[in-house]
């Protein structure tokens, strides 16, 4: 229910600056996911929004009102922790009702709100249990329930699925998506290192790297048009192949050791990288010019598809994602090709460059 504004937000621990001036606007009711590798500052940023860490400099606004110095409870937030952080000595009901009880709500309202949340999360039969009598997934639902009953302006999630096993993670992910549909006015900020969670849940993804925003955009925008080489490699599994590129005599581009592409080289030709996603590569038809021809060193069969590693004379092999029906065996030689519009071009500084046909 709140619109968030981050203005040049910084955080230092002692001398170490962790967050370097972040600017971001989050719309009311938006689901924003902070994603990035460990140590990128995504959790710290969330804790700054929650009020669990003090903001070193910059401004944090909720609906235009500066909240830098407000304690967490006055910000109207709720938070779901990675470790659930349930009170182990209280029943599920009391875990959810604790905050309300202390806020001196009348017991009828408390019961109503807790029961409504329990119904939403299918926790009704568990209300009298202690956290230790629940499974991981149930605990996580209690943690979410505790957040719901607070009726928050902003809903914060700190890697809520990290402690769940793979099957439960998928299921809970869907539940969180449904939760957001049911609470369309509640702004949600979600931290994860898992790009699948980011892709599936987010209205917008914020990719963080070493305390700076690398790119902000809708999930498919990040996938199709990564602004930097870092985003290109981070979003999408398996990761995008990045091939060192050379400029041909005709002013075109050629990935090192591969065939020339009908793409115009940029002015600055040093340190270029051509990116192509494994799923955009295919086996060249007869008569189709191949990008690379190389020996298969490894085949990873995923069931619905297979990842074929092709030796192309670089340090890392070229990874090609093929349908499971395509015959591919280790040791045999493959000719691999990709449509020209599947390529991404990155400069020496890691920034994406425009692809221009020759």
């Amino acid at each position, binding site marked *: 229910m709140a619109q968030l504004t981050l203005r040049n937000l910084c955080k230092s621990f002692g001398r170490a600056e962790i967050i370097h001036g972040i600017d971001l606007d989050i719309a009311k009711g938006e689901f924003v996911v902070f994603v990035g590798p460990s140590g990128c500052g995504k959790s710290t940023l969330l804790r700054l929004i929650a009020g669990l860490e003090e903001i070193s400099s910059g401004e944090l606004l909720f609906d235009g009102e500066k909240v830098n110095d407000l304690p*967490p409870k006055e910000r109207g937030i709720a*938070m779901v922790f990675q470790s659930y952080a*349930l*009170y182990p000595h209280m029943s599920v009901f009391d875990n959810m009702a604790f*905050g309300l009880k*202390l806020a001196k709500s009348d017991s009828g309202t408390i019961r109503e709100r807790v029961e409504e949340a329990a119904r939403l999360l299918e926790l009704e039969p568990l209300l009298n249990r202690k956290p230790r009598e629940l499974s991981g997934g149930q605990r996580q639902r209690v943690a979410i329930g*505790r957040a719901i009953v607070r009726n928050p302006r902003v809903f914060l999630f700190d890697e809520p699925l990290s402690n769940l096993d793979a099957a439960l993670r998928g299921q809970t992910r869907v539940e969180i998506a449904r939760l957001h549909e049911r609470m369309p006015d509640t702004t949600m900020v979600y931290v994860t290192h898992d790009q699948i969670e980011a892709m599936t849940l987010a209205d917008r993804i914020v990719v963080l790297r070493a305390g700076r925003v690398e790119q902000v955009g809708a999930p498919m925008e990040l996938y199709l048009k990564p602004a930097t080489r870092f985003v290109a490699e981070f979003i999408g599994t398996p990761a995008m192949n990045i091939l060192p590129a050379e400029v041909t005599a005709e002013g075109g581009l050629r990935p090192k050791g591969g065939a020339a592409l009908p793409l115009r080289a940029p002015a600055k030709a040093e340190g270029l990288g051509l990116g192509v996603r494994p799923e955009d590569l295919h086996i060249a038809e007869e008569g189709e010019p191949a990008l690379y021809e190389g020996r298969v060193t490894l085949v990873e069969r995923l069931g619905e598809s297979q990842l074929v590693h092709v030796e192309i004379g670089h340090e890392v092999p070229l990874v090609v994602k093929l349908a499971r029906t395509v015959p591919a065996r280790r040791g045999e030689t493959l000719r691999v090709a990709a449509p020209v519009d599947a390529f991404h071009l990155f400069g020496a500084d890691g920034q994406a460059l425009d692809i221009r046909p020759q």
Partner: protein
Amino acid sequence: MKQSTGRTLTISARRRRAAALFLAPMLLVLVLVAGWPLLRTLWFGFTDASLGDLAGARWIGFSNYLEWLSYGEGDGEWVGLLVDGEWWRAVWNTLVFTFITVSVETALGLVVAMVLNVRFPLRGLVRAAVLIPWAIPTVVSAKMWAWMLNDQFGIINDIGLKLGLISSPVAWIASADTAMVAVMLVDIWKSTPFMALLILAGLQMIPEDIYEAAKIDGVNPLVTFWRVTLPLAAPAIMVAVIFRALDALRVFDIIYVLTPNNAETRTMSVFVQENLFQFDQFAYGSAASTLLFLVIAFITLGYIRAARLNLG
């Protein structure tokens, strides 16, 4: 495989055998150093043994505990430990001493532990420094306090007089009104660090994010302490209390050094020691020793039961 057929053991049977083998030396030592003396004491309590003639001890039944001493013609009186006012006085002293010192030590220990649980510069040093009273041998610290509490030369009287808190020097240790207080004070000074350390271990088991969840729930620090910290630290506190209570129920050294031969502070252990080795009442002392054992055992069992019920 071939050789072992015929005498194959299941894995669990083999584990049991290995466990028994590893435990045997310890059990043997326990029987020798704890079981045997305990049985001997129990036995002497039912005899007329004296310190000079342990070998000649004869069985006299329950006479040390309770006996009708007949003066003839139906006249007489009950004698023995169970009707000995001095013994019950010692039991009462012990219980008072234990209850008050352990309560105060728990409260103070909790405060110290909470302070030491907060991150601040030189915390490691402070944690070590706090332990100093516990590290000093009891006899040494008791003697030290005896001088500090001395009515003529003691620093406590000196400070009290200079600050105008007392008008004339107080014989803290010697006077009947203050002897117990003085003894308890020294015990609290000495044992609070130990209590704090045990409780600190319990506090450190509480995950940080529960406090953060409480912050987000808008729980104020005082309520957080009563509703979150205390219930979660309770198991550790219960264990710490039982450790201290066991020590306090057996208290001897502080009292022996600080206030010898004083009915106000005579505890069960002191009573036993006096009878065994000073009054040449070895059998009587042994009987008291047996009762002391039973009293402590009952209190401990009762406490554990109550604590478990409380903890759910």
